[in-house]
């Protein structure tokens, strides 16, 4: 069996890369270990009738260029985007509700701080500007960060021009914001714990750092790319997140790609000249291909699937030094009915106010994420536990009633609650993750949620917990890291996955990387897959010209 290109893994980036290559006329085979496409965009029937998003339960946005190029809208994917999108209940009562309308959100913030409410529109404008500049960077290959030769100087100049076009002041401002802590960033604007804690929770997702750590402001901006100026923008797909993989599969297949599910890749085959020639499956079967593109994480690809003799020792050492440190867990609940949120003061006035328990409850029942992050200190203390190798006693939670917008995911009247929990460190100070620890984590999450939804424990029909080790196994995530590598400053841009190798190529000729472990990193947006495909096609064209 031979192909022009074989893609390892049918996660969303592998599918996007495969679809682009197939559209360009290459014969593409995509091989996937699991029985369903989509990778972390997975929907599984954990209990009869309950369709559960066991990986991601939200995405911000598929990159607009990818969506346009692949005609995602025509392929049958239906995105549901709740407004309001975040409900953050507060310890002292009430909830901060963030939605698409800035004025309405400001009205809710007013309950916590008059000054913060006044600054909200200006803050959104500033963050949108920064996100726009950042997205310009995301649309380019990062410079090589090597001794600049003639070619690189040209690229650096192009990058400078691109940045210059978005405004030099904005570029300098982005440069100032990126290394900041999200605590510092928010401190420049806001005073109230409610606003700062809620926003900070979006900036620490997937990294083993607290909101006081430098570089977390960058993560906040990363979440703002593609969010159209809406903090906490979330989308889910009708039928569950797994529909993303199915849609991308249809698109890739329509373009001529072949997708084979349920097949594990054992190794990348390499010829005597150090060139990738295809892959070998666990079954022993081989698929020959001119290009091999891996959607598995960089470490797993290069250390696990390539013979170590093909790599320079320094390169291998750099690979082993990539920091993953997964800190996320998932808790899934099947509920007998939708939970009520705790009344704040029981008075009618509260129920009527824009941030009262009534409005909060209504928002959650309309698909907003219930965020447990009432202050920066709460989030930072949750991190402190992880720092010393313990799961957070009081975790940061992003919980979504996925059935709110899509009742078809559960039997009539029943609901599914999916909770992304942080911090649950992959490496524990004492011992390993096991079922008992996962159940303890489940208990901690239910009790944290019960603070704001007291009847929740009594509504649980089924419970399922995936700790970081469980996530690692289920989705082949390195140390359970949801982004295929921590998105800290040294591991983004030029440094993703490794300094000098941020352009999808590897030391093995014709072996490319396309996962979230490459620039511009994680989030279900398809950017790395599209950028990797562009790089391969450019090399392909160049190679053909050379052969002519």
């Amino acid at each position, binding site marked *: 069996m031979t192909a022009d290109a074989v893609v390892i893994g049918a996660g969303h980036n592998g599918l996007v890369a495969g679809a682009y290559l197939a559209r360009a006329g290459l014969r593409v085979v995509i091989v996937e270990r699991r029985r369903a496409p989509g990778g972390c965009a997975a929907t599984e029937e954990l209990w009869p009738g309950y369709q559960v998003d066991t990986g991601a339960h939200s995405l911000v946005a598929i990159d607009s260029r990818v969506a346009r190029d692949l005609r995602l809208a025509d392929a049958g994917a239906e995105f549901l985007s709740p407004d309001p999108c975040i409900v953050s209940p507060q310890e002292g009562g009430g909830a901060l509700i963030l939605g698409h309308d800035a004025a309405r959100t400001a009205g809710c913030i007013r309950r916590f701080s008059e000054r913060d409410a006044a600054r909200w529109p200006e803050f959104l404008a500033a963050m949108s500007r920064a996100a726009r500049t950042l997205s310009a960077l995301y649309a380019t290959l990062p410079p090589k*960060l090597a*001794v*600049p030769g003639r070619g690189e100087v040209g690229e650096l100049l192009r990058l400078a021009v691109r940045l210059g076009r978005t405004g030099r002041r904005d570029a300098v401002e982005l440069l100032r914001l990126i290394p900041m802590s999200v605590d510092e960033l928010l401190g420049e604007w806001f005073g109230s714990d409610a606003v700062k804690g809620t926003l900070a929770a979006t900036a620490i997702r997937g990294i083993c750092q607290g909101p006081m*750590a*430098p570089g977390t402001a960058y993560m906040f901006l990363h979440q703002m790319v593609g969010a159209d100026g809406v903090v906490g923008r979330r989308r889910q797909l009708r039928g569950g997140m797994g529909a993303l993989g199915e849609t991308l599969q249809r698109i890739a297949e329509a373009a001529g790609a072949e997708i084979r599910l349920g097949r594990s890749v054992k190794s990348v085959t390499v010829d005597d000249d150090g060139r990738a020639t295809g892959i070998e499956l666990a079954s022993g079967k081989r698929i020959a291909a001119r290009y091999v593109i891996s959607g598995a994480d960089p470490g797993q690809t290069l250390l696990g699937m390539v013979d170590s003799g093909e790599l320079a020792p320094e390169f291998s050492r750099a690979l082993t030094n990539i920091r993953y440190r997964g800190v996320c867990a998932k808790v899934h609940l099947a509920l007998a009915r939708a939970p009520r949120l705790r009344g704040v003061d029981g008075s009618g006035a509260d129920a009527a106010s824009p941030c009262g328990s009534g409005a909060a409850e209504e928002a959650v029942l309309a698909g907003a994420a219930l965020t447990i992050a009432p202050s920066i*200190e709460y989030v930072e203390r949750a991190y402190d536990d992880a*720092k010393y190798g313990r799961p957070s006693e009081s975790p940061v939670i992003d919980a979504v009633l996925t059935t709110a917008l899509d009742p078809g995911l559960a039997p009539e009247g029943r609901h599914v609650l999916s909770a992304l929990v942080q911090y649950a460190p992959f490496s524990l100070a004492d011992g390993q993750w096991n079922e008992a620890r996962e159940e303890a984590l489940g208990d901690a999450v239910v009790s944290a949620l019960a603070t704001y939804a007291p009847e929740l424990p009594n509504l649980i029909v089924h419970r399922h917990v995936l700790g970081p080790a469980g996530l690692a196994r289920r989705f082949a995530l390195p140390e359970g890291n949801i982004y295929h590598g921590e998105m800290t*400053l040294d591991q983004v841009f030029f440094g993703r996955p490794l*300094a*000098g190798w941020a352009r999808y190529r590897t030391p093995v000729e014709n072996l490319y990387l396309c996962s979230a472990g490459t620039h511009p990193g994680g989030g279900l947006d398809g950017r790395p897959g599209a950028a990797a495909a562009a790089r391969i096609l450019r090399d392909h064209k160049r190679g053909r010209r050379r052969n002519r």
Partner: protein
Amino acid sequence: MSKANQYDAIVVGGGHNGLINAAYLARAGLRVVVLERRHLVGGAAVTEEIFPGYKYSVASYVVSLLRPSIIRDLELVKHGLTILPLESTITPLPGGDYLGRWADHDQTRRELYRHSARDADAYEDFGTLMFQLARAVKPLLGVVPPNVASPGLRDLRTLLSLGKHGRSLSRQEVHALFKLMTMSAADFLDEWFECDPLKATMSASGIIGTFLGPRSPGTAYVLLHHYIGEIDGVFRAWGFAKGGNGMVSEAIASSARSRGAEIRTNAGVESVLAKNGRVQGVVLEGGDTLTAPTIVSGVDPKRTFLQLLDPGELPEDLTASIRRFRIRGSSGKVNLALGELPEFSCLPGRGAHHRGAFSISPSVNYLERAYDDAKYGGFSRKPYMDILIPSAIDPGMAPPGRHVMSIFVQYAPFDIEGGWDDAKRDAFGDAVVDTLSEYVPNLRDAILHRQVLTPLDMQEEMGLTEGNIFHGELSLQQLFFFRPAPAWSDYRTPIRGFYQCGSGTHPGGGVCGAPGRLAAREILKDLYK
């Protein structure tokens, strides 16, 4: 107005940068006066006999990065500067053992072998790489940061020359620099070493003066400082100024005076006068007015732009930048007069180690826990400490047979919950003595006098806003062309004739002197262009 109060240049603040600036201006023939609020010059680099017979380097206590060119240009050795080398850095460990690094390379290697053979080998390679990187970074210390917000010809020239310098570096060096600028000290060291106390002690140099822990990104690059000092080749990396760190200031002051500069103490500046965007003079606290066409501020950016000047004279984006400039103090200082030599239980008796430094940093987690306390508004109950026994290095610091001990302590947040008061200062001093007594059993009984400086004390006594020892945190977004504000990192200000020369400008804090010298260079350029 009398001619006596008219000068070519006035320097506000007699800290080491102000003095260096004045010395260079005087050397160029300007009639210069330095105005110092306190009764002595030196700012944070002062030696004082707080307790009769015992000399304390009250705040700053080592010389690390003082630029060799400054030592040469200002003939500081002739003016009394003698730097004595430090013998070692000892990290006492809880079990009674210790980790030592010595001036003698082979001794360090043997000692590291005792803890980890792997680390002993890695230490060599690490040192080699860091030397290379220090060489790569060093030119930045002598460069006026370019204005990247609206670059002019001069800025493009600077960028071009930096680019040219960049091209001389190897791929490996560029990659390592990128990691060094962005990683946490603990993560960076994790890639090299396994011995926890070694990683902790090395990463401790990355957290000094910051409000960050060793696992916070952005703390790795300070590791370089140590090595930059070393390649200067004039002195060893960290040295002790004979007579205490005040002698550094005295030598600079003496050099400045010999070139004709006038130095007035007890002359606090109330405000700087500006008219039509041009500087006029200064008003002293007593009400006297001094005039000069050039005025240089050696105080921190908050004081320079928000207190000395009427902020109304300045563009709004600059005052906004300065308002959000982070300057959180995080450290304190404890000075002790001791009746006898402190004995470390890990190294009993008197030895060469007494002429070195002691670092209370037994593990990375220890430092992180110390940081945790500060994050939530308390001082560290078990703090990180960097300790010298100056009298063991320079017997002149205390009466015969007696000793002084200098203890740099972190963390002590300026914004401590409830604010600093006498009781809290005492409790902070007790935490230091209690923790140190675990390693130095005879300490408590030997104490004759104790001076405790909180960040608030440093603000009140030395004029360091929020007690920040670097005039502003050395975080990435406050370095180079961001220090102290984009477009105003070239020592100039929007007020013509008004300049900045303190540690709040590039390349920042430590007794390095580069800001004072670079500012003088820019001033002279403006005057003689």
